[in-house]
């Protein structure tokens, strides 16, 4: 009898543990796994299914050359291309490079601003998806105080 009880409680415990580990994954499923990817190319592949970028000066990336405070770095991305459907911002040395991704339905302007954190001096990359192709523009930002340590 005692053995049965023990088995029962063991079984209950393992299923509970399994359910608990499965939970966050389920909740994360809706959110693209690109945000958890540790590399720029990996995140690009998760997000767009391709990491092939064409550098294009038609993209305007406005970001300070020197950021005194890495925890608040203003970034503005603007593009004059037609049919822009998505704009994403990457910081290549952050633990998860993909900072933000904007989906632009018809009617939305290809211009977004946001404030992001940069852990150290690194390259900030804007990726614009237009007509199914990926274009990019990048700039280095020198960070004097990192934004990840707190």
């Amino acid at each position, binding site marked *: 009898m005692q053995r049965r009880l023990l088995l029962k409680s063991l079984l209950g415990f393992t299923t509970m543990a399994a359910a608990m580990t499965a939970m966050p994954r389920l*909740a994360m499923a809706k959110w693209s796994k690109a*945000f958890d990817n540790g590399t720029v190319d990996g995140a690009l592949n998760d997000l767009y299914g391709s990491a092939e970028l064409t550098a294009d000066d038609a993209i305007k990336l406005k970001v300070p050359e020197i950021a005194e405070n890495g925890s608040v*770095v203003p970034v503005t991305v603007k593009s004059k291309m037609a049919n822009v459907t998505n704009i994403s911002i990457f910081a290549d040395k952050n633990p998860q490079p993909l900072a933000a991704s904007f989906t632009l339905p018809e*009617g939305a*302007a290809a211009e977004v*601003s946001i*404030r992001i954190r940069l852990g150290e001096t690194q390259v900030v990359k804007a990726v614009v998806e237009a007509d199914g192709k990926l274009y990019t523009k990048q700039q280095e930002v020198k960070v004097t105080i990192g934004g990840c340590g*707190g």
Partner: protein
Amino acid sequence: MKIKAKMKKDMAVVKVLAKHPMETGLRKDKKTDKVIPAKFIKELVCTHGDKVVFHADFGRAVSKNPYVSFSFAGAQKGDTIAMTWTDNTNETLTVEAPVK
């Protein structure tokens, strides 16, 4: 959440300041040395009528109290837009604002 929406020619320019800690889950509390649990906005959506006019997905690198600006066509002075954010703990907040 503070929202300012203003018509500029035929585009509605929207500026949003959401109040949120945006904890990455990578930071440690200096006193207790324990990891501060992650709490960050994952999704910020703007609707105008029944149409989604802007959709942003955020990663952990978005700053505390996120500021975002964008613009969209099709709105008129006096219209109402609604902004909704959802964070990783499934907490959500919707705020409506007039287009001026």
